[in-house]
């Protein structure tokens, strides 16, 4: 059970400050949604959280230790990330690709054992790809490739899941299924998740907390119920947003024009 923390993190893209002094604590049990318009720095922030990039200033801390100073293998056992795009250059089977999630847990010469295989099969089953095990990854549709990448992330079993637009390319059924899986993982109280999303209603339904990036360094973060309203969303997306009361809470949609 680890805590991932941003301490006064600045994010710059091409010299322009997009996030200023972000303070954030991603605790076990929380599912964060990261909202903001295109190009505002969501992916860059996720990369900083994953230790792939270094923030322009400030620190990202895993259990109070600067993640840029931790060995990658150790990080990979705690933090996993679903990237925005998955491109397969070399052919491989679906099962083999799901198994790569075990990589950080295996020693140098070690081979995947029966338990690892079992984990991969269960993950493929969970994303509805169990009949695809022997299929080649280059022949998958966009949505199937997305689900496979998510399965590999499940196999990696990270305590903290970072997700860059996890519902990209997915049909409604699978959007709900995958968001539900992430949420139930965090409900166990040992895991946390942090997902960049464009669908505010998915964030409203599933996320316990949201952070919004307004640009020019401005941001706000907090529990979803307090953060998501017409005013904040209009400020965020620069368009008129209507609020509807749904059976399971408020829903937002852009007003035409």
């Amino acid at each position, binding site marked *: 059970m680890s805590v991932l923390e941003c301490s006064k993190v600045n994010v710059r893209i091409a010299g322009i400050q997009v996030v200023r002094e972000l303070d954030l604590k991603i605790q076990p049990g929380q599912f964060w949604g990261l909202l903001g318009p295109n190009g505002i720095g969501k992916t860059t922030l996720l990369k900083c959280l994953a230790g792939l990039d270094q923030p322009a200033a400030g620190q990202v801390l895993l259990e109070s230790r600067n993640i840029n100073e931790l060995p990658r*293998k150790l990080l990979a056992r705690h933090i996993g990330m679903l*990237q925005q795009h998955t491109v397969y250059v070399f052919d491989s*089977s679906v099962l083999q690709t799901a*198994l790569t999630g075990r*990589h950080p847990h*295996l020693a140098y010469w070690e081979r995947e054992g029966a338990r690892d295989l079992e984990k991969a099969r269960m993950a493929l089953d969970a994303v509805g790809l169990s009949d695809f095990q022997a299929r*080649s990854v280059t*022949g998958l549709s966009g949505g199937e490739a997305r689900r496979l990448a998510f399965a590999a992330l499940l196999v990696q079993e990270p305590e903290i899941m970072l997700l860059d637009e996890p519902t990209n390319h997915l049909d409604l059924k699978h959007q709900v299924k995958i968001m539900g899986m992430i949420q139930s993982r965090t409900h166990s109280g040992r895991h946390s998740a942090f997902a960049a999303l464009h669908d505010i209603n998915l964030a409203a339904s599933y996320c316990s907390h949201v952070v919004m990036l307004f640009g020019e360094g401005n941001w706000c973060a907090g529990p979803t119920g307090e953060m998501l309203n017409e005013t904040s969303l209009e400020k965020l997306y620069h368009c008129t947003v209507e609020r509807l009361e749904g059976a399971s809470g408020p829903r937002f949609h852009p007003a035409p024009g």
Partner: protein
Amino acid sequence: MMPTAHRRLLFLALTLLSAASILIASAAGSVTLNWSEWLAAISNSSSDQGELLWRLRLPRAAAAWTVGALLSLSGCLMQVLLRNPLADPYILGVSGGASCAALFGMTLGVAAGVIPALAWAGALVSILIVFSLARGEGPWSGTRLLLTGVVTASGWAALISLLLTLGPDSSLRGMLFWLIGDLSYAKLPYWALAILVLVFLACLGMARSLNVLAMGETTARLLGEPTRKLLWIVYLLASVLTATAVSIAGNIGFVGLIVPHLMRLLVGSDHRILLPAAAMFGGLFLVLSDTLARTVLAPRQLPVGVVTALLGVPLFLLLLNRARVKQ
């Protein structure tokens, strides 16, 4: 994933085929040995045929096998390194540096025995040039490495043309054979075999890391690989393999490009199986190609590079086509 039983069968087959290829290479040639002559020759190394076998054909076959394995292994590594299925062992200019040095030596008329050492030195210079220029600060950039390597290779190619133009006519034929790839004078240097074994073991240890690397640098980092370090190790290992192969046999084409592909189509892309399979198949493929090169137009000997290309291209296209139909 390949079941264990299939895997054993595959490696048994590749071992037997390798042995068979060396047997054929040692028996066939301008003087073809039948079974009893072969047995007599192998047991009596001081007879004429024994000398032929022990001093000419077997060392040449062993050299061919080693070079084939070196090139195929290097091709596998280069393709992962650049994440490009079109990469081959020569793409980053290692062979260009080797060729330049070797051809320069030939122009000056140095002894044939010195050429491999010269070639190795040339390759090393090229490796160091590309390494120091492409390394830089900041994150790994495959594009920067590829561009640095390709441009360096073009530079060597220009120098090679210059050497060919200025070189004495008497050495042109030798130079040309060297550039096409030729095993006529190849003896098996034990250091080459040692390099092959050592690098192969190192690669096999990293095989699972290569699997995740093939999925992209970012994916590999997210799965716990310190990719910057790993990629430079892969670059250096692949370059050493190429340099060793080229210094023995010149620029034999197509083996390092085609064998990794063929093996990917046959055994999949798990490097724990792909690397040994590619090394063994590359070895036996080059032994057979070289045997053909010696025998097809005997007593004329062709440079083996011609044969690998003539054999490899249709074989590759055929398998590629079959794989597509299967999908």
